[in-house]
């Protein structure tokens, strides 16, 4: 009720809840603008309503095509490789998803077509057709239709027809009209929904004054309730143009009889279109505009005008007695004597007494009990399939009438996962191994067992010794011993510190249990107390096993101290440990190539062709069509191979030859006398040593000194070294500088055994391995040459190397410098030095000169040696040539040594930079 009702308005009835009274100064809330009133569909997308007249659907962006950004063709793709193909668009392409759904305009689902649908739906149409046939200018044309038309009449209709049924009639025995109007028999019970009042007592026959007594009528074709579902998308109550109505006229502009209570209306609801008098042709319906056949357009939108209503009271309802009294209809049927007024009293204004008593709630009697029914319920005891109570179980089973002897028919809840798996015939899942022991190798397990046994025995011995005075407990049970041992273990664990060790990390619950267990173990609780940390859902046996497992894990943990475990971090992402990516094709069999090169048979023998995928962008930048437009591989295609597969290392074992050997054939010739045909990189050092046999001792001595100084930078180079797989060669190259190490080096197999199987080695291709061996030889040579000559800037290292190269023993300790790193870094062909010639020595370092001198000096020595050995080495020969060109300089440096050169260096012009560096 309205709160602001005044005294004079009291008798007004107001509906709904009143608005909140406006506060003083409060601004009226702005209504939400139309564009912000949003509705979302099931998927959360915004839906827009428009086309309200046609029950419209949303299309595009605010009734436009396209999206907010405008009209964009869907997924337009066109590239050099993939041209946009022309597609023929159908109407479906412009439809929304909703349109294609079940209730859309073009549903995609399978629906029953008219041919298969039951005829009940089409009764209206049938009726309309029938009526049309009657009303048509030539009556009976529909009969022809029926004859000509396909046999759409279902068998039911056909049968009914044969039984005398005619369309338009109801089904059932013919009845007299009168009984219909009689009061309903109170004894007849009507189930289901009560019919609307007045329906049974149709007032339509009131016009028919005369009704012969002996005439029976077919029952009315009544459609009591409009059960037709709303199938269209029109607004409620909207009717489109009905062609049958439009053509044959209907009571569209009929006088609307308000007072007949709609009894006829309800029966006419579905269109009981029987011809009535004075019917006009015309188009009705609530469509747009006025039909061409309609004479006037006064009723376009079915407006309710007062002219439709009675303006004059007249005796319309004889026998009513109300004479136009417009009270609810119920009042007119006062004649009913058996109406019971359950409620006697004032009826509130606006209310009326129910015309019919509310349907009596029928109480159904309970079903009659069977004769042998005993009203006692007892629960069947659940029997664990134990051994001692099998008799009882059997008895019970017999009593219940079913035998559950077959284990397969046991309740599925009683089965364990393993049993189920067995029944299903599935293979066991390879989950995480339940015990840490399974992660250990056989040997470790063995050892662990031994340790355990030993400690157990120790404990036992202790216990025995402790308990020997206590004679009562002399025969201590082994269980007791384990408890004691547990205690001991707990004590030991206390010292072990916090546990970062997570043996059951894969099973967090178990890990938690384990942690609790260990904690309590540390506190020195007994085994029984410990058991409460175990999973209570487990069976006793499982619990026992887990306890055992925890104990073992604890032992393991103790044995590996915390410092060790803290060094390892569990991998966040489980990587593919067993597989390693290996290039699919590999450059292999260097041996064959070596021989081919030696025989100068270049071509097929020395060539490897691989499929190589350039990056797409690279192709673009090079203006080249991508040779593999469909592949996403970049570089050489790789394959995953078993990491520990033998085949990955098969070629490793084959003896690799050094590069130098093949190329410098002369050296080889000289070496071939005392060397195996295939030299490895280790031989190279020998070769080098041989070359300067007399000085090798000194070199090694000096180098060992220099090496000590060089040691620190080595890891640095490794670290800052390549991010790729080439870290190893760097290290090897560094190592190679140390001839002493080389001499005492273990065989290669050992290295392989150590490094090849290590998990952190990324690529283990055989090719790489063999090349790695190859590489050091070259780099070694590079380093070897580094020792002979050096870059001008490299002051300290050049000094160092000079020492190593000269035979003099004058220089011993040398200053290290930051540029040693460079020395270690050298691989491959050296950069040529910048010589200092007399003309522009101001630009160059004095050292260059010295180096040159030293070189000359050396070549001289070598020449001497050459004379003795007849060893032809191109380099040396050339050097000799070189020397010959400047005999005047050579003569001065005949007897020079490094100390000499040092002094020389001081005298010659030094760049200020060099001086600073010193």
């Amino acid at each position, binding site marked *: 009720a309205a709160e602001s009702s005044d005294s004079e308005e009291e008798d007004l009835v107001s509906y709904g809840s009143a608005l909140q009274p406006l506060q003083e100064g409060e601004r009226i809330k702005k209504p939400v603008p139309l564009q912000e009133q949003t509705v979302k569909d099931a998927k959360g997308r915004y839906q827009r309503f428009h086309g309200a007249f046609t029950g419209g659907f949303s299309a595009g962006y605010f009734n436009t095509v396209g999206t907010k950004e405008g009209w964009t063709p869907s997924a337009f793709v066109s590239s050099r490789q993939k041209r946009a193909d022309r597609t023929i668009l159908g109407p479906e392409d412009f439809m929304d998803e909703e349109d294609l759904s079940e209730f859309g305009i073009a549903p995609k689902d399978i629906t029953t077509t008219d041919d298969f649908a039951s005829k009940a739906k089409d009764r209206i149409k049938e009726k309309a057709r029938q009526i049309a046939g009657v009303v048509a200018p030539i009556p009976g044309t529909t009969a022809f239709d029926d004859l000509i038309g396909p046999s759409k009449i279902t068998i039911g209709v056909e049968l009914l027809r044969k039984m005398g049924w005619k369309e338009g009639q109801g089904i059932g025995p013919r009845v007299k009209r009168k009984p219909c109007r009689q009061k309903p028999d109170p004894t007849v019970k009507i189930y289901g929904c009560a019919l609307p009042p007045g329906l049974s007592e149709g007032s339509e026959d009131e016009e028919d004054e005369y009704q012969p007594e002996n005439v029976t009528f077919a029952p009315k074709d009544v459609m009591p309730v409009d059960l037709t579902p709303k199938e269209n998308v029109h607004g409620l109550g909207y009717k489109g143009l009905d062609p049958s109505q439009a053509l044959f006229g209907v009571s569209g502009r009929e006088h609307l009889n308000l007072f007949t209570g709609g009894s006829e209306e309800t029966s006419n609801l579905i269109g009981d279109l029987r011809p009535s008098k004075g019917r006009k042709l015309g188009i009705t319906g609530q469509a747009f505009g006025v039909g061409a056949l309609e004479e006037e357009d006064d009723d376009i939108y079915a407006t309710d005008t007062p002219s439709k209503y009675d303006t004059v009271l007249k005796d319309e309802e004889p026998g009513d007695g109300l004479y136009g009294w417009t009270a609810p209809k119920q009042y007119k049927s006062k004649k009913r004597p058996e109406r019971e007024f359950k409620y006697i009293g004032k009826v509130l204004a606006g209310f009326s007494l129910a015309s019919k008593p509310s349907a009596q709630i029928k109480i159904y009697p309970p079903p009659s009990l069977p004769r042998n029914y005993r009203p006692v319920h007892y629960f069947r005891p659940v029997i664990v399939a134990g051994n001692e109570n099998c008799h009882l179980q059997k008895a019970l089973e017999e009593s219940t009438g079913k035998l559950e002897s077959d284990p397969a028919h046991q309740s599925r809840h009683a089965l364990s996962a393993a049993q189920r798996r067995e029944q299903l015939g599935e293979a066991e899942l390879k989950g995480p191994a339940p015990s840490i022991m399974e992660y250990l190798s056989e040997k470790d397990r063995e050892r662990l067992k031994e340790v355990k046994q030993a400690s157990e025995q120790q404990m036992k011995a202790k216990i025995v010794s402790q308990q020997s005075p206590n004679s009562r407990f002399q025969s201590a049970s082994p269980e007791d011993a384990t408890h004691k041992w547990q205690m001991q273990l707990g004590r030991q664990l206390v010292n072990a510190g916090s546990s970062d060790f997570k043996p059951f990390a894969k099973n967090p619950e178990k890990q938690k249990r384990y942690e609790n267990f260990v904690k309590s173990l540390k506190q020195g609780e007994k085994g029984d107390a410990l058991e409460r940390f175990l999973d209570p859902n487990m069976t006793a046996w499982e619990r026992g096993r887990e306890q055992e497992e925890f104990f073992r894990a604890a032992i393991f943990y103790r044995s590996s101290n915390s410092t060790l475990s803290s060094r390892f971090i569990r991998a966040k992402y489980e990587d593919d440990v067993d597989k390693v990516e290996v290039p699919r094709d590999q*450059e292999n069999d260097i041996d064959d190539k070596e021989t081919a090169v030696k025989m100068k048979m270049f071509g097929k023998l020395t*060539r490897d062709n691989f499929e190589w995928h350039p990056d797409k962008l690279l192709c673009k930048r090079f203006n080249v069509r991508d*040779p593999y437009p469909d592949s996403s591989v970049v570089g050489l295609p790789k394959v995953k191979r078993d990491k520990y597969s033998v085949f990955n290392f098969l070629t490793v074992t084959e003896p690799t030859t050094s590069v130098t050997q093949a*190329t410098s054939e002369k050296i080889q010739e000289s070496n071939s006398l005392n060397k195996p045909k295939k030299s490895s990189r280790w031989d190279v050092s020998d070769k080098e040593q041989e070359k300067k046999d007399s000085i090798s001792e000194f070199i090694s001595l000096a180098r060992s000194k220099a090496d000590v100084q060089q040691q620190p930078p080595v890891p640095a180079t490794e670290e800052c070294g390549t991010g790729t797989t080439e870290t190893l060669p760097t290290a090897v190259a560094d190592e190679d500088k140390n001839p002493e190490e080389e001499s005492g080096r273990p065989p290669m197999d050992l290295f392989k055994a150590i490094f090849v199987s290590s998990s952190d080695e990324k690529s283990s291709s055989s090719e790489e391995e063999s090349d790695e061996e190859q590489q050091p030889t*070259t780099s070694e040579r590079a380093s070897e040459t580094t020792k002979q000559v050096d870059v001008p800037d490299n002051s300290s290292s050049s000094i160092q190397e000079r020492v190593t190269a000269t035979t003099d023993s004058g220089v011993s300790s040398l200053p290290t410098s930051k540029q040693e790193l460079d020395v270690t870094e050298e*691989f491959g062909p050296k950069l040529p*030095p*910048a010589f200092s010639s007399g003309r522009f020595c101001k630009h160059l370092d004095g050292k260059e000169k010295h180096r040159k001198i030293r070189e000359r000096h050396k070549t001289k020595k070598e020449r001497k040696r050459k004379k003795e050995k007849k060893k032809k080495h191109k380099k040396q020969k050339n050097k000799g040539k070189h020397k010959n060109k400047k005999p005047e300089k050579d003569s001065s440096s005949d007897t020079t040594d490094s100390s000499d050169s040092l002094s020389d260096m001081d005298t010659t012009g030094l760049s200020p930079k060099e001086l600073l560096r010193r």
Partner: protein
Amino acid sequence: MAFPRPRPARPELPRQRVQTLQCGQGAVRAARFNADGNYCLTCGSDKTLKLWNPHKGTALRTYQGHGYEVLDAAGSFDNSQICSGGADKAVALWDVTTGQVVRKYRGHAGKVNCVQFNQEATVIVSGSIDSTVRCWDCRSRRPDPIQVLDEAKDGISSVKLSAHEILTGSVDGRVRRYDLRTGQLCSDYIGSPITSVCFSKDGQCVLAASLDSTLRLLDKDTGELLGEYTGHRSTTYRLDCVLNEQDTHVGCASEDGHVYFWDLVEGSLALSLPVGQGVVQSLAFHPRLPCLLVATQGQVTLWREDNFQPE
């Protein structure tokens, strides 16, 4: 009536020294002609890069910005940019006129031995002793290379590009040719560490210099050996090899201070050019003229044919 075509000029070899550039930047690690051969770049061990007009002998510009010695440089086709690589593991892209470093590409784990532009100067290809060849994008700002060619097992000593190929020479004794058009990698085994590779002008052959003091001319497609040239000395250093402008001769620097030229077909030694006493570090042949740029020690010399008359 058609004129008879002029007889092709007899190939001449540079025999006389016409210019000497005192670079004053320490050891000259590399001397390179620009695209048309009118200018040259010298890479110094004092971290500088210099642009010269070698024909006039004038220094035009000094580019400073490398953190260590500059080992190789190349100019773009339009002379607007220079790329260089150095021992500071970086590849730098320079603007010629401003002298500023436009970009620095870091990613190599070792010295960058060689750099090259592609034809349109959109990609810099650099080879390093870290055994990788990296292709850097000059167009976008991405800091990482477009592609890393890490097939080599040892340091890359030389990289050359053609329109659609990347030719690399590696210390592992292999010449690898990445063909972008066919999507193939051809790896030719030479055996000895490769110091320098180059394409012939007709793009059919590959010349490879290796540390066994041999130059080999290989057929690009089959990998067959077409010629072998020996006589020089190259056992230690990374020395350049060149083909002359008409593909008639091959040349190589030598450690004995000479530059050797061989007849390409016959393989006979055609010329031994005494340059100096030191190792000839770098060679560059003019793209069109019989004109040779030789870097030795701290200087660069320009050599022309005999009958050349300097203005």
